[in-house]
């Protein structure tokens, strides 16, 4: 067995152990079981006043008070809190809810080290692992489900998990966008078009789905996307998928010679065709709508509808102009002219931002492949612009969820996860030389397929696979 194979197997074993033990990691001071088996006593119904704790953020209090106002939901709230208290004691856990899981900061840190390791070795999939941590490893998803479908606290916890995923993934783009800006590699027309679509998608999804998605639904959709990602990575490990790498290796030698002969000629970026005015207007409408919708709630009656109209109009303008003759953008880079239809990045920005706002993952690695495959643009030019698009869409989405919809997060937990991600980023580069790329991809195919199928079945069909 080679060193690389052994490393890969060790990682799979470690992860399997981690996922199997995951639900045990929450710091739960459960009472010791009695010697003689007795019939399970029904959980005592907690006093309503004890459900609202001083540590509870105001948004969580509001969700619980909303549930207590409805007799059916009030019963569910009391049962879920009582169940949690019976399992974990009455002390406040996640988001100050009595009996809720209290994810151990140490194990949150360790899981985040794993996420950071993935970020720094594989590239993609880190956000997915962060989501798996929030949903399964720390037991938050399971806990959200105990409140039942349609319950305000179930939906609040689901939204909190979504936003926590986005903080971990979206923060990344702040640093990289700044670096690309310094290098002067942001393509303005492309940035405008992406921004129109991504701001619209990142604003509308939280507005339309916050407080409306139960945990099971979210888990099912998350699983489906992870499954698709697993299939894409699987294709890349097949002989057909590896063909492109072979071609690239052969072509690299040929064109490396040509590049050296051409010398280090500086390449200038210059736009030669395209109308920007409509896109500036489109972006202004979308941004104004998002600001009014998120920050301006209560400024005036009907501010929500004004926001929807502005965002809708801005996106529509971007699409109409984008697919018209005026939407043909051309720019020169060095001696090569590139052309693209502006409507394509508008649609792409909309779809990708909507997906990443809904799931909390997927924005980082989708923009560049989309632009290079669909619009045929070189990676060098789209990379910086895509990083900016991720920053814009994540900021809009997080703002829309937290400011517009009042969703809360556990700041300390995210902070500890960031420490773990940073530590993982230091370990990753040191281990990557021992593990070939193809083995990393195979490892993640296995994980993606298992997690994807598990979440899909659990979310939509209530069939449980071990560990997820």
């Amino acid at each position, binding site marked *: 067995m080679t060193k690389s194979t052994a490393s890969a197997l060790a990682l799979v074993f470690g992860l399997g152990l981690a996922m199997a033990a995951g639900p045990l990691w929450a710091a739960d001071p459960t009472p010791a079981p009695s010697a003689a088996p007795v019939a399970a006593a029904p959980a005592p119904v907690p006093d309503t006043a004890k459900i609202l704790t001083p540590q509870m953020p105001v948004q969580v209090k509001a969700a619980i008070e909303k549930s207590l106002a409805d007799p059916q939901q009030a019963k569910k709230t009391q049962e879920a809190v009582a169940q949690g208290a019976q399992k974990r004691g009455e002390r406040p856990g996640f988001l100050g809810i009595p009996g809720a899981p209290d994810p151990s900061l140490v194990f949150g840190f360790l899981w985040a080290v794993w996420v950071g390791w993935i970020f720094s070795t594989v590239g993609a999939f880190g956000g997915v692992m962060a989501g798996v941590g929030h949903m399964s490893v720390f037991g938050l998803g399971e806990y959200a489900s105990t409140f039942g479908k349609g319950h305000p606290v179930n939906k609040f916890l689901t939204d909190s998990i979504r936003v926590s995923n986005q903080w971990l993934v979206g923060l990344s783009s702040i*640093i990289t966008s700044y670096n690309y800006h310094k290098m002067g590699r942001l393509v303005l027309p492309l940035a405008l078009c992406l921004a129109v679509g991504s701001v619209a998608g990142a604003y509308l999804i939280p507005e339309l789905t916050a407080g409306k998605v139960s945990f099971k639904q979210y888990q099912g959709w998350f699983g489906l996307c992870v499954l698709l990602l697993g299939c894409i990575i699987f294709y890349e490990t097949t002989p057909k998928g590896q063909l*492109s790498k072979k071609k690239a290796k052969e072509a690299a030698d040929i064109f490396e010679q040509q590049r050296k002969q051409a010398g280090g000629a500086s390449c200038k970026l210059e736009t030669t065709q395209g109308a920007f005015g409509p896109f500036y207007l489109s972006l202004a409408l979308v941004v104004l709508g998002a600001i009014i919708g998120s920050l301006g709630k209560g400024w005036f009656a009907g501010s929500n509808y004004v926001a929807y109209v502005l965002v809708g109009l801005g996106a529509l303008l971007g699409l109409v102009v984008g697919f018209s003759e005026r939407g043909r953008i051309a720019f020169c880079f060095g001696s090569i002219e590139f052309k693209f239809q502006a409507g394509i990045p508008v649609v792409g920005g909309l779809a990708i931002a909507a997906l990443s706002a809904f799931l909390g993952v997927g924005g980082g690695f989708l923009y560049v492949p989309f632009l290079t495959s669909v619009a045929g643009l*070189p990676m060098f030019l789209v990379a910086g612009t895509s990083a900016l698009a991720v920053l814009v869409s994540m900021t809009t989405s997080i703002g829309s969820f937290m400011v517009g919809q009042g969703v809360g997060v556990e700041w300390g937990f995210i902070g500890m996860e960031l420490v773990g991600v940073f530590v993982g980023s230091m370990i990753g580069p040191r281990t990557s030389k021992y593990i070939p790329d193809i083995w990393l991809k195979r490892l993640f195919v296995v994980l993606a397929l298992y997690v994807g199928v598990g979440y899909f079945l659990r979310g939509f069909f209530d069939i449980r696979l071990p560990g997820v």
Partner: protein
Amino acid sequence: MTELGGEGASWLAWLDAGLIAPYRWLHDPVWAWWAGTLVLAGWATLLGGLTSSLARRANRAHLAGLEREMADRNAQAMAALAAGDKPAYKALNKDANEAFGKLFFLKAAMGAASLWPAFLAVAWLQSRFEGLAIPAPFTPWGIGYAPGFLICYLIVRLSIYWLKKLLLTKAQV
């Protein structure tokens, strides 16, 4: 101000004595809050800067390798395109994509080194000032602890950035 509480806040309680001290420097409670939060933002920025430098130093060689691979593949892709070889261009561009993806996420993970103290600072502020509307100076508005910290954090980071730029310019002259 609310009392600290909960098992998860035990580490916050340990730091509380040091973190609350700047909030008691001024007599006026509003100015005291803003002054204390500016100091807190300063500590978060300093600590983030230290760990970020550590991350950059530790990964310098690996980052340089990935950047070189990405730049090489991209340049080769452009040469292929200039030569009219579209299949080669697509294959090389895809390789450049992969290198970019690894670089992007490595930098993302390293970026966490700069930002983690800010989140822990907000967690402490949540334990102390949850539910309070802090008056924004010279305005009739009250804002929460998180937006207040964000404002102070941006002020501190931008100030340090401009100060560094000024000192570097003077050093070059």
